C-alpha cells in the first residue's frame, strides 16, 4: 500500500508541465546524443549539466536521467544503419543489426532495438521501484574478488565475437589488454608505457578507441571500397507495418529480452559495471543460449534485442546505488551524482525519506520517459530509417565531423582526436586483415578492471589466491565462466564419445 502511495506521489510530481517538458527534452536529446557517434551519454550529461544550474532539482535530474536512457536507445540507430555505434553500449547491436540492414530489414532491426530498449527500461523501472532498498545491499556484496570473477566471465565473451576465427579474436583481445595496461598502475602508481606523454598517465579511455575502431575505420573502409553498396530502400520499407518486427521475430527474441533485462539490471546495479559491460555479457549469453547461436553475426534479430534490452536495464540499475547509497553505478551516474550534490540532495539511505517527492518523482519519470521514447520511436522511426537515403559521400562526411567533435569534447583537447584517429587507422588495418574489432574494445574495457580487482583481492587476502577463488560468489561466477568458455567443446567431445560408444556397441 505504501508503495502505491509513494508512486502516486511520484506521478503527481511528474504531472507538473515543467517536469514533463524537461523529461521530453532529456529523452529527445538523449536519443540524438546517443545516435551521434561522437557523443556518449556521460559526455552528453557532462555537457548539459551546467544547464541544470538553478533549475528545480526534480526537473534537472529527470532531464539528465532522460538523456541517459535515451542515449542507450539512440546509440542503436547509427549502429544498425551505418555500422558506426553511437556510443559504446551500442557496439554489440551493430554486430547483428548492420547485417540485418544490409539484408534489407533495417526497419525491423531498428524497431526491435527500440522495443527491446523500452521493454528493458520499463521492466527495470518496475524492479527499481520494488527492490531499491534490498538491491542496495546486493550492490555491496561484490568485493574485488567477485568483480574479478565477473570480468573474467566478461572476457569469455571474446569467443562469441570472433566471427569464427578464434585466433584473430585473441589477437585483437591481446592488443586490447596491452592497451589497457598503458598509464599509471592503479595499485602502486608506477608508470607503464607512458613515455613521458602527460596525457597517457591516466591511460587510454575506451571511448575514443571505440570511436576510432568502429566509426572512423568503418567510414574509411566503406568509402574506399569499390562496390560502395548503398542499402536500397523501397517505397514499402517506410510503411508503418514494416516497422514492427514480425511474430516470428518476437518468438525468437522474447526469452533474450527477458534474460537481457535481468542480467543488465543486476550488472548495472554493481558499482563500476555499467551499460557497456552489460551489453557485452548479454550478447554473449544470448549467443550461447540461443537455438541458432551459430548464426549470430549474420543478422539474427535476437542479437539486436539482447544487448539493447540489457543496456537500457543497466542504465536503470546504475541509478539504484547512486540514489540509495551515494555510490555511482557507472560512468554516467558518476556525473549525475555530481548534479545531485549540486542540487543539494544528499544521495544515500535517507534520500527516499527526506526528499520523497524528488526520489519518487525520478522513478515515476522513468516510466513516463520510456513512454515518451515509445511515442518518439513510432513517430520518428521512418525518419531515422530515411537516413539511408542520404548519399554515403555526404553522410560519411557529416558522421566523421561528429566523431571529431565528440573526440575533442571528451576532454577539450586535441589529444583525444589523435587517439581516435590512431585507432581508426588500426581499425582499417583490422578490417583488411579480417581481424574482429569488438574483442579489442572488450579487452580495453575489462582489462584494467580485471587486473586491478585481482590485485586488490590478493592484497585483501594477504596473497592467498586459493582464498580468493574459493569465496562462494566468486567460485560460482568463475565456474559459470568456465562453462561458457569451454561448454561447447566439452559438449561436442561428449557427443563424440557417445557416438563412439554407440558405434562400438
Amino acid at each position, binding site marked *: 500500500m505504501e508503495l502505491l502511495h509513494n508512486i502516486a506521489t511520484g506521478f503527481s510530481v511528474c504531472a507538473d508541465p515543467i517536469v514533463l517538458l524537461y523529461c521530453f527534452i532529456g529523452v529527445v536529446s538523449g536519443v540524438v546524443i546517443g545516435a551521434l557517434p561522437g557523443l556518449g551519454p556521460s559526455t552528453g550529461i557532462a555537457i548539459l549539466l551546467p544547464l541544470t544550474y538553478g533549475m528545480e532539482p526534480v526537473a534537472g535530474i529527470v532531464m539528465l536521467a532522460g538523456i541517459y536512457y535515451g542515449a542507450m536507445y539512440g546509440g542503436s540507430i547509427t549502429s544498425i544503419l551505418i555500422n558506426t555505434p553511437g556510443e559504446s553500449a551500442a557496439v554489440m547491436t551493430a554486430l547483428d543489426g548492420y547485417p540485418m540492414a544490409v539484408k534489407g530489414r533495417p526497419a525491423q532491426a531498428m524497431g526491435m532495438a527500440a522495443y527491446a530498449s523500452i521493454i528493458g527500461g520499463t521492466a527495470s523501472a518496475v524492479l527499481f521501484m520494488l527492490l531499491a532498498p534490498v538491491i542496495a545491499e546486493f550492490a555491496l556484496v561484490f568485493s574485488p574478488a567477485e568483480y574479478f570473477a565477473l570480468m573474467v566471465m566478461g572476457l569469455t565473451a571474446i569467443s562469441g565475437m570472433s566471427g569464427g576465427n578464434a585466433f584473430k579474436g585473441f589477437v585483437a583481445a591481446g592488443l586490447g589488454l596491452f592497451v589497457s595496461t598503458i598509464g*599509471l598502475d592503479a595499485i602502486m602508481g608506477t608508470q607503464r608505457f607512458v613515455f*613521458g606523454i602527460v596525457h597517457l598517465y591516466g591511460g587510454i579511455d575506451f571511448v575514443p578507441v571505440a570511436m576510432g575502431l568502429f566509426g572512423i575505420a568503418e567510414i574509411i573502409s566503406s568509402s574506399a571500397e569499390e562496390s560502395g553498396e548503398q542499402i536500397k530502400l523501397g517505397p514499402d520499407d517506410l510503411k508503418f507495418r514494416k516497422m514492427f518486427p514480425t511474430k516470428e521475430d518476437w518468438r525468437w527474441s522474447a526469452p533474450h529480452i527477458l534474460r537481457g533485462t535481468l542480467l543488465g539490471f543486476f550488472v548495472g546495479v554493481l558499482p563500476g559495471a555499467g551499460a557497456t559491460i552489460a551489453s557485452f555479457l548479454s550478447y554473449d549469453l544470448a549467443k550461447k543460449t540461443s537455438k541458432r547461436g551459430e548464426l549470430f553475426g549474420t543478422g539474427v534479430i535476437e542479437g539486436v534485442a539482447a544487448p539493447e534490452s540489457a543496456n537500457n536495464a543497466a542504465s536503470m540499475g546504475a541509478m539504484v546505488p547512486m540514489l540509495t547509497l551515494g555510490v555511482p553505478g557507472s560512468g554516467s551516474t558518476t556525473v549525475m551524482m555530481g548534479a545531485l550534490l549540486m542540487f543539494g540532495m*544528499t544521495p544515500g539511505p535517507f534520500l527516499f525519506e527526506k526528499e520523497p517527492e524528488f526520489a519518487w518523482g525520478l522513478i515515476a519519470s522513468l516510466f513516463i520517459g520510456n513512454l515518451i521514447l515509445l511515442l518518439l520511436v513510432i513517430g520518428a522511426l521512418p525518419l531515422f530509417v530515411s537516413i539511408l537515403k542520404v548519399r554515403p559521400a555526404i553522410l560519411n562526411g557529416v558522421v566523421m565531423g561528429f566523431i571529431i567533435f565528440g573526440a575533442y569534447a571528451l576532454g577539450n583537447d586535441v589529444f583525444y582526436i589523435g587517439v581516435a584517429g590512431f585507432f581508426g587507422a588500426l581499425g582499417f588495418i583490422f578490417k583488411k586483415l579480417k581481424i574482429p574489432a569488438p574483442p579489442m574494445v572488450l579487452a580495453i574495457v575489462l582489462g584494467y578492471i580485471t587486473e586491478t580487482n585481482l590485485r586488490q583481492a590478493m592484497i585483501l587476502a594477504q596473497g592467498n589466491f586459493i582464498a580468493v577463488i574459493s569465496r562462494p560468489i566468486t567460485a560460482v561466477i568463475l565456474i559459470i565462466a568456465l562453462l561458457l568458455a569451454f561448454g561447447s567443446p566439452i559438449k561436442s567431445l561428449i557427443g563424440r564419445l557417445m557416438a563412439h560408444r554407440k558405434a562400438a556397441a
Partner: protein
Amino acid sequence: MKKRILSLLCIAVLCMSLMAGCGGGTQNSAAPESGNTEGWVPTEDIELTVGNDAGGGADLFARKMVEIIGKYDMCPVNITVVNKPGSSHVVGFTYLVETGGDYNMNVVSSSFYAQPISGNSPLTFDDFSYVALVAKDPSLLIASNNSGFETLDDIIAYAKENPGALMLGGSSAISDDAILCEQIKQQCGIDITYVAMEAGSDVLANVMGGHVQLGAMSPAEIGDNLAAGNLKAIAISADDRFEEFGLGDVPTFKELGYEIDHQQHRGFVMAADASPEAVRYFSDLIEQVYNTEEWQQFMEDNCMTGFFMDCDEYSEYNQELIDTYTEFIAMIQENQ
C-alpha cells in the same frame, strides 16, 4: 570511381577544417604590461581550468567561487570554468603552464603536490605563481560494521595482536588517503596495509560491504550512510569537529592525542609568467569571496575548514607543504 573520390574528398575537407578549428588552441594574447602597480584590472575574460570532470570535487569548488563572484558582481569580466581532465589534474596544470599569462588560473588540490613529487608530472613548483589558499579538507577514517572497531584504541589493539592483518582502503596509490595511512602507522606504531582503490565511492562501497576493515575518504562523500548505520566513523584529521553528516560525535585525532592532521589544501594558482599585479588582484578577489556568507556556508556543508592565505603568505607556506608531501611520499614509495 567519381563517387569514391568525392566522398573521400568531402571527408578530407571536413576533417581538415575541424582539426584546424579544434587544434588552433586558445590564443591568449599577453596582457598589456601595466606600468602602474596599483589598480590592475582584468580586461579580458578569465579562464579557470579544472583538472577533473564536471561534478568532481575541484570542479564544484571552482564553480561555486565563480557563482559567488557573479552574484555580487565582484569582477568586471567573465570567468569561465573549463574542464581539462586527465592524469589526476596533470593535464590541466600542463595546459595552464603552456597557456600562461594573466588570464588563466587553476585549482589546487592534493594532486598539485602529489603528482610532481611522485615523479608523475613534467612540471616543477617554480612553474607556478601562488594566488591564494582557501580551505583545508580533512580526511575521515571509517570502519566497516563487521570489523567490530568502535574507537581508535580498538584498532591499535587489533593491529598489535594481529600483525599484517589490518587493511585500509583509500583512493589512488599516492594521495592524501595514503598519507593519512602513513601518519597513523607512524604515530600509533602499528602496521597497516594500504589498498589503493579508484575513488572515494569505491572505498565507501568496499567498507560498507565489509570487504576491507578501514577506509580513508573525504567526509563530504559519506552522505547519509553514517546516520543509517552502514559504517562507523572513527576519527577525523581536522582541527575541530564537524556537525554535518552526523559527524558531531566523531573525535578529531588531535583530541585523541595523536598528531594526525594531514589535510588537503585547496586554493588557486596561476602560471609563473603572470604579472605580480594580476596575482595580487586575484588574491584580493578571492579574499572577498572567502568572506561572503555563501562561501562560508559552502565550506561548512562540505566539511572544509576555512583557511585563508593571500598570495604572499601562500608563496611562503608553499615550501612547508612541499616538504610534508615529499616526506610522506618517500615513505609510501619505500613501502611499496
